[in-house]
């Protein structure tokens, strides 16, 4: 195969890998925003704790647990953590001015980061290779197994989530609450419960992203959620905040743009470019690619 083409395809695969992880994390942001109109700054930290949970299960328990078990346990713990942060910090501020809730979210994010710093210490720890990084040759190009798993499982999760939202009763309730909270309550929907469920699902998916991230990129450390969290948020905004499909699309787009910039243009400016995209989107199409324009009420 032509060397240039091969290089391009390998970079594309790198981008898809990163993109899948951003997509998983972005879904969490978008679901929470859709339902309570809050940017959960602490979402990146949930991703980080998810990775740490998996790390702990993989290294401290004497028996060799299968990957699936570790991941599910990490996702469950992260879901509980997400629900807890909502109950402790965000619930009381549902009627408060936006700026208060935002500041609290920032505070929560910092709190979780520093908590992790104290508990786990700042030194990065090596994540055990729960999924092999060895390459499988597909069409003459080596693709690491972890990449295949990441892309495959992410797409699977997104399909399951879409079905859940469209077909199940709980999914319909979620859509109702995000459209009009008060009306949903009047219709007899348990708004508190739905909000908790949203946080639980978002956090679980974020944790899954965290596990894949730490395996692919080797390490877990307390501040690992900051940058991916920020970029996943940018992805969510890009795709249309509140729109799950948009989050997935945005994740892949941002992941590929980042990788291609690093590979072909300059790694120096890749981060600035991604932030620049954010500013452009916010300025010219704040509802994102797949989002709808909402008029502000007086």
């Amino acid at each position, binding site marked *: 195969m032509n060397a240039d083409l091969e290089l391009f395809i390998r970079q594309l695969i790198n*981008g898809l*890998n990163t993109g899948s992880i951003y997509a998983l994390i972005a879904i969490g942001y978008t679901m929470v925003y859709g339902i309570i109109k809050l940017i959960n700054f602490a979402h990146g930290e949930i991703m980080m704790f998810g990775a740490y949970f998996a790390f702990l299960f993989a290294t401290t328990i004497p028996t060799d647990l299968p990957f699936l078990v570790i991941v599910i346990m990490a996702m469950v713990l992260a879901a509980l953590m997400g629900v807890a942060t909502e109950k402790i910090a965000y619930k009381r501020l549902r009627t408060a001015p936006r700026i208060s809730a935002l500041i609290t979210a920032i505070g929560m994010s910092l709190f979780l980061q520093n908590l992790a710093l104290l508990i786990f210490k700042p*030194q990065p720890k090596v994540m055990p290779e729960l999924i092999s990084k060895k*390459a499988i040759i597909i069409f003459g190009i080596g693709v*690491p197994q972890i990449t295949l798993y990441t892309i495959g499982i992410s797409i699977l999760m997104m399909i399951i989530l879409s079905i859940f939202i469209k077909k199940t009763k709980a999914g319909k309730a979620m859509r109702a609450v995000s459209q009009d909270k008060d009306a949903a309550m009047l219709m007899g929907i348990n708004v508190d419960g739905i909000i908790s469920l949203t946080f639980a699902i978002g956090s679980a998916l974020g944790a899954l992203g965290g596990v894949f991230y730490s395996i*692919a990129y*080797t*390490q877990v450390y307390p501040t690992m959620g900051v940058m991916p969290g920020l970029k996943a948020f940018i992805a969510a905004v890009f795709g249309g905040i509140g729109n799950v499909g948009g989050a997935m699309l945005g994740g892949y787009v941002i992941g590929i743009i980042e990788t*291609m910039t690093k590979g072909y243009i300059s790694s120096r400016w890749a981060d600035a470019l991604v932030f620049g995209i954010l500013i452009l989107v916010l300025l010219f199409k704040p509802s994102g690619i797949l989002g709808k324009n909402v008029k502000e009420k007086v």
Partner: protein
Amino acid sequence: MKKLLLIILTLSFTLLLSACNGVDDTVRLGTIGPLTGDYSMYGVSVKNGAQLAVDELNEAGGILGKTVELISYDSKGDPTEGVNAYNRLRDEDEIHALIGGTFSGVTLAIKELAVEDNMPVLTPTATHPDVTLDADNVFRACYTDSYQGKVAAIFVDETIEAENVAVLYNRDDAYSEGLALAFIEEFESRGTVVETLTFGAQDDDYSSLLTVIQASSAEAVFLPGYVAEVGAILTQAAAAGMEIPFIGGDGWDSIEVDYADVADGDYFGNHYAKTDEAEIVQNFVTNYIEEFGSSPTALAALAYDAVYAMANAMEDAGSLDADAIIAALKDLDMTEAVTGSIKFDENGDPIKSITMIQIIDGEHVVVDKVEGN
């Protein structure tokens, strides 16, 4: 009435006198380094190495017959904090000399104040070239970033014999950038640098950069950085199936702790090797392990040597006067040191060779000792 006045006068005079200056019955050395935060292992290493030297000195009778006291403050890796720490050491603790800072950024911030104060400064680990520039009273025990980069280039050309090389460094880190730029400057007269790539401090995903290197004609990669990022990069490189050797600087020290398998066969330059058979090295290693329970890093060795260098200078000078100490440091010729020898050029930089080490089966194997002049 007169008697009362006299008593009051005497008492206030004595009070004034004692408040004037901490009586010089101990020799006080200060260290500044990151004791908390992401880089705490470096600050703690320096503190421990210095402490070991201080304890040994005290057991042997101290400096100029007085007990040696080591006062350490946390810079948190931040220049502002470093300045506060230095001010505190100078004003509140009244140190006689500073073994610090640990990081170049902090040391540069402190340097201006130290020059104003004429404080004898011997930094064990700050490698930025400007640290000793135009500062008569500032010395360092380690070689500079530019020297390391240059020597690495010589090593890659003459020992590894690679003609095409890729350079990968951390653009957010002065140390990494310093070594990389010096390497490139030296290597371009010997071979070709086919790719120069950078990553940031916040990056975790190096796959796109490694892919570019793999697709190029590079036969070796110069990767100056610290253990955390280097370990991640080497792991991802191994997963991508890269087999060309990686070479690094003293920031790689201790990489074999967590990353021995992926670093196997790679090289780095260091201030000393734990496996060096010289008696002074082995004594140092044994005593350090006994006191602190872990193996000493090169930073600890440098701090240890720095304290001894300062002690020797003070003994040579016969006093704790700043000018005398500085003059003695200028003339110092310490041939027996863990990190080789300590003798300063007119800038305050040591004249040394770099120990090039290869990691084999998790052990440091000395390959060569290279000089850059």
